């Protein structure tokens, strides 16, 4: 892509307004919740009151007899369907079979003519349970005497995306383990000049996609058609292929606008259940969950991390070791991959010669955990970035200087075997330090912190796309990437317009219909701009190559005599726009050319990760020492994005991610009391609000064009979350002297820590 380095951009690297703007401000943007099909029935789900129980018997006859009820779906009557799904481990029944593994698990679904009728019929279902001992904590669950959640031995899912063995179902509650090791940590710790060691907790968090899970399914002679709020329709297609034993060509996933995802809509959720309902009822069925049901469907993995980090006499980090227990809840979902990623993400963004990470992903009788923005990185960065500040304090070094001293350098292979670092952390850190006034005097009760992270991002490189250039000079972009709000429907046509030299407004996006749009593995891991962006760029260029051949044909010249210019070609005196090339080629003002691209793990993408997603963030907080209340006063971010195709959208990702990181750092946490989720609603699960936001916010993008994406772009959208919880803990320490190692830093926790710190100082 060296020829791109010096070009002047016409459309990319500009904050063009969102393509979906008008639809979204006028209430016309279509989400699955807004879709109605003719003859559609509605399903409602009966959920388990027990965290762990055997289903002794179930009587659904009264519910089935209610006026307006069509059917009741139950786990012991699924005909020929293969009821287990899971892209990593096939451990998840679409509705409980024989037993339930968490309170809130679906045990039956009523299908009726309207939602109220379905809902009213639920209380006519009688289920007899035999309660089993439940286990809620990972370390308890690994005890040999702990109740076992899964008795079956599982098949590996077909689309695992990671290299680890399946340990799930092998007679323990261990779902997955992952180990990273190089150098000799024991020797390094033995000779270290200073060591810090501690245990850190990152809470269970709820992504709160505002649109709760929703899907509509229809099963007929054509196969299975599903409208879903899924982030990764092609991955869901694969799970349904197995459930219905059909070829993928007969499974159609359609995803219109999605009301937020943040990872929580990655992979398969309610689609197997709703399609089984449609199969049973022989009519289209819609299942719209409430937020409270969504909170019983997926959460983020919590993590308890023991970590120690060592420096030598020069302040260089020489070793890090961690032992991590993560909690995937009742089913594996995507946690095996989260396990691998969080292990990897313990290291970066520092170059550490001796590393040992042992990570355990464990089944418990809690709500299943899966992807959530940050994806394992936020969990361990709570520990890692806290320890950087603790070490800096111990050796008397400024924590900013200490980070700069140790940060991975550009092109450094700081993680053996992985892609050399493709960012500029020292530059990122300096920008943030300057923007939050790192050296400025602080008012009493205020504290500052700066942090950074680097994630092996981009997921697996497998993506395809088609760019159709029409005879009138307009274009259609066929993409499997879903528009979650991140702006892919704006960024990707910007690339087409840039390449073809056609106006941005003439590029239409057709997206996320597995029957129509070419395969894209997923919309997550910050991969779309990098991977789909490259595919779109290459497909545009391939279309132009075809049009050059067409131009040679209509002009009767050799291809080599034709020169491409913006929006068309020249050949001697002749100048043709793409529209003229096509019109002359087809001899009608109609027809098209289809440019294609296929991305695989090869070439620029041969080495993983696709890119390192790096960012630096900095904050200033004030602490009300009497109440323990923390207020964020300033926020600075530097997103290391290579090149922002649309800077306003990239900055929007950074502040959005940072805000979620702030929420988890300050008040977000799903809490279980024994066997039940205690705060499974928005009255009790506290999300960031307008009034929580700092009054000073400075967002910057670092654009060194050092990524493998189009024009040197890299992804963004997660990195600014990852360091925020640790930043809050570090800033509270700076303000009060109280070190807190468990997020969130709620007022009472902060008050107690301040009191304890003062007590220690007094004694």
């Amino acid at each position, binding site marked *: 892509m060296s020829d791109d380095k010096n070009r002047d951009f016409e459309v990319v690297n500009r904050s063009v307004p969102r393509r979906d703007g008008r639809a979204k401000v006028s209430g016309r943007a279509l989400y699955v919740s807004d879709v109605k099909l003719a003859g559609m029935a509605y399903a409602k789900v009966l959920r388990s009151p027990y965290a762990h129980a055997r289903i002794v018997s179930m009587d659904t006859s009264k519910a089935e007899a209610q006026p307006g009820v069509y059917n009741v779906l139950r786990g012991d009557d699924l005909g020929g369907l293969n009821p287990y799904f899971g892209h990593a481990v096939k451990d998840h029944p679409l509705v409980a079979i024989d037993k339930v593994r968490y309170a809130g698990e679906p045990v039956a679904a009523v299908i009726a003519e309207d939602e109220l009728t379905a*809902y009213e019929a639920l209380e006519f279902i009688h289920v007899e349970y035999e309660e089993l001992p439940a286990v809620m904590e990972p370390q308890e669950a690994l005890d040999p005497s702990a109740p076992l959640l899964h008795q079956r031995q599982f098949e590996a899912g077909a689309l695992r995306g990671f290299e680890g063995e399946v340990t799930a179902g092998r007679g323990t509650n261990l779902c997955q383990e992952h180990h990273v090791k190089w150098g000799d940590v024991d020797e390094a710790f033995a000779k270290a000049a200073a060591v810090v060691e501690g245990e850190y907790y990152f809470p269970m968090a709820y992504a709160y996609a505002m649109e709760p899970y929703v899907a509509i399914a229809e099963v007929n002679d054509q196969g299975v058609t599903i409208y879903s709020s899924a982030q990764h329709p092609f991955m869901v297609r694969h799970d349904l292929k197995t459930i219905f034993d059909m070829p993928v060509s007969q499974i159609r996933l359609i995803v219109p606008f999605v009301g937020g995802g943040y990872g929580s809509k990655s992979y398969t959720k309610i689609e197997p259940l709703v399609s089984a309902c449609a199969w049973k009822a022989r009519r289209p069925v819609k299942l719209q969950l409430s937020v409270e049901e969504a909170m019983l469907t997926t959460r983020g993995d919590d993590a308890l991390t023991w970590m120690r980090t060592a420096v030598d006499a020069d302040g260089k980090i020489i070793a890090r070791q961690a032992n991590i227990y993560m909690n995937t809840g009742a089913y594996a979902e995507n946690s095996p991959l989260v396990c691998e990623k969080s292990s990897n993400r313990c290291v970066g963004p520092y170059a550490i010669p001796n590393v040992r990470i042992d990570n355990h992903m464990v089944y418990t009788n809690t709500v299943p955990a899966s992807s959530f923005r940050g994806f394992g990185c936020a969990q361990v960065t709570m520990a890692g970035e806290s320890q950087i500040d603790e070490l800096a304090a111990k050796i008397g070094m400024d924590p900013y200087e200490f980070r700069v001293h140790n940060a991975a350098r550009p092109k450094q292979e700081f993680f053996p075997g992985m892609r050399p670092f493709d960012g500029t952390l020292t530059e990122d850190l300096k920008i943030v330090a300057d923007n939050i006034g790192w050296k400025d005097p602080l008012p009493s009760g205020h504290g500052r912190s700066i942090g950074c992270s680097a994630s092996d991002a981009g997921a697996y490189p497998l993506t395809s796309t088609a760019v159709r250039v029409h005879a009138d000079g307009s274009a259609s972009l066929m993409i499997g990437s879903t528009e979650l709000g991140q702006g892919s429907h704006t960024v990707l046509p910007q690339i087409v317009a840039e390449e073809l030299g056609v106006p941005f407004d003439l590029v239409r996006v057709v997206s996320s219909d597995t029957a129509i749009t070419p395969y894209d593995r997923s919309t997550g891991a910050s991969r779309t701009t990098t991977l789909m962006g490259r595919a779109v760029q290459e497909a545009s260029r391939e279309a132009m190559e075809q049009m050059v051949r067409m131009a040679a044909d209509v002009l009767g010249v050799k291809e080599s005599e034709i020169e491409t210019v913006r929006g068309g070609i020249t050949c001697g005196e002749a100048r043709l726009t793409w529209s003229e090339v096509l019109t002359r080629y087809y001899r009608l003002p109609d027809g098209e050319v289809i440019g294609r691209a296929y991305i695989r793990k090869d070439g620029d993408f041969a080495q993983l990760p696709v890119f390192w997603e790096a960012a630096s963030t900095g904050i200033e907080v004030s602490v009300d020492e009497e109440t323990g209340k923390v207020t964020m006063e300033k926020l600075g971010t530097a997103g290391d994005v290579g090149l922002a195709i649309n800077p306003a959208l990239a900055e929007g990702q950074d502040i959005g991610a940072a805000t979620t990181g702030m929420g988890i750092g300050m008040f977000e946490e799903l809490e279980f009391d024994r066997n039940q989720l205690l705060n499974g609603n928005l009255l009790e699960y506290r999300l960031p609000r307008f009034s929580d936001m700092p009054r000073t916010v400075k967002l910057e993008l670092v654009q060194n064009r050092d990524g493998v994406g189009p024009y040197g772009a890299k992804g963004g959208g997660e990195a600014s979350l990852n360091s925020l919880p640790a930043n809050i803990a570090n800033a509270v320490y700076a303000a009060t002297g109280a070190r807190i190692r468990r997020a969130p830093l709620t007022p009472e926790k902060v008050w107690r820590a301040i009191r304890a710190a003062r007590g220690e100082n007094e004694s």
Partner: protein
Amino acid sequence: MMPLRRFAIHRPADLGEAAEMLDHYGDTGTLYAGGTELLLAMRHDLLRYEHLIDIKAVAGLDSIEARDGHIHIGAGATHRTIERSPVVRELLPVMARMEAEVANVRVRAAGTLGGNLCFAEPHSDPATLLLALGGTARAQGKGGERTLAMDELLAGAYENSLSRDEVLTGVNVPVPGPTQRAAYLKFQVHERPLLGLALVLDLNEDGSEIRAARCAVGCVSPTPCRSEAAERLIAGPAAAAGERLQQAADTLADEAALTDDREGSAEYKRHLIGVLLRRAAGKCLDANE
């Protein structure tokens, strides 16, 4: 989506008919005003009623007026109406400020004072402030009208003491005299406050002496809690109130019988009562407030 179960809505022409309806439907019916709490509880299946009696159909229940040294606020007045009422703003600014912070702008537009008090959610802001202000409730049933002190009306968590046929028609709040100062402070982590604290001080002419005090703490016990012993402790010279306020806070915390819950530990709540009482006193004593 969580649908509401089916019910019928009835519109009484006057209080007498409302009382008749309440009596007639018994446990299957209840009064309905703004619905901001009732409908949430019904949606969560915590409450089931087949009949809602729309008390807003009775004219005149939303009036606000000053009379005989009191402000009379109709039970049907919304939080927003009270917040914006010129009468309340002038004569009882502490009430207007409290109402401006209840829940959010949508709840304030629809929710009513009467509904809030009758629903008796333990985290109610108005209940705590009205208890400290010495407000009283007016109720009317088949047997006629009666007046209840605020702590008589609030019988427990989600429980009021009105009889089956009685309707809360409004509250009477004494207009604070020229020597009285009032403050309401709350501390909030989740959607509902963790702690609300209302303080009314009666000062001498130059503000150097606290002649009497009334204070109430809310959210930390089934109903807002007052302690006369605590109030007596607060009285005394304004300049040296710190120690007395701490003792008063402890006494009030004892009276409230604090417990640990998701909002916080009893120990933390006890501490916060001290902090908020001191801050409330600071506001009352600050001549600029």
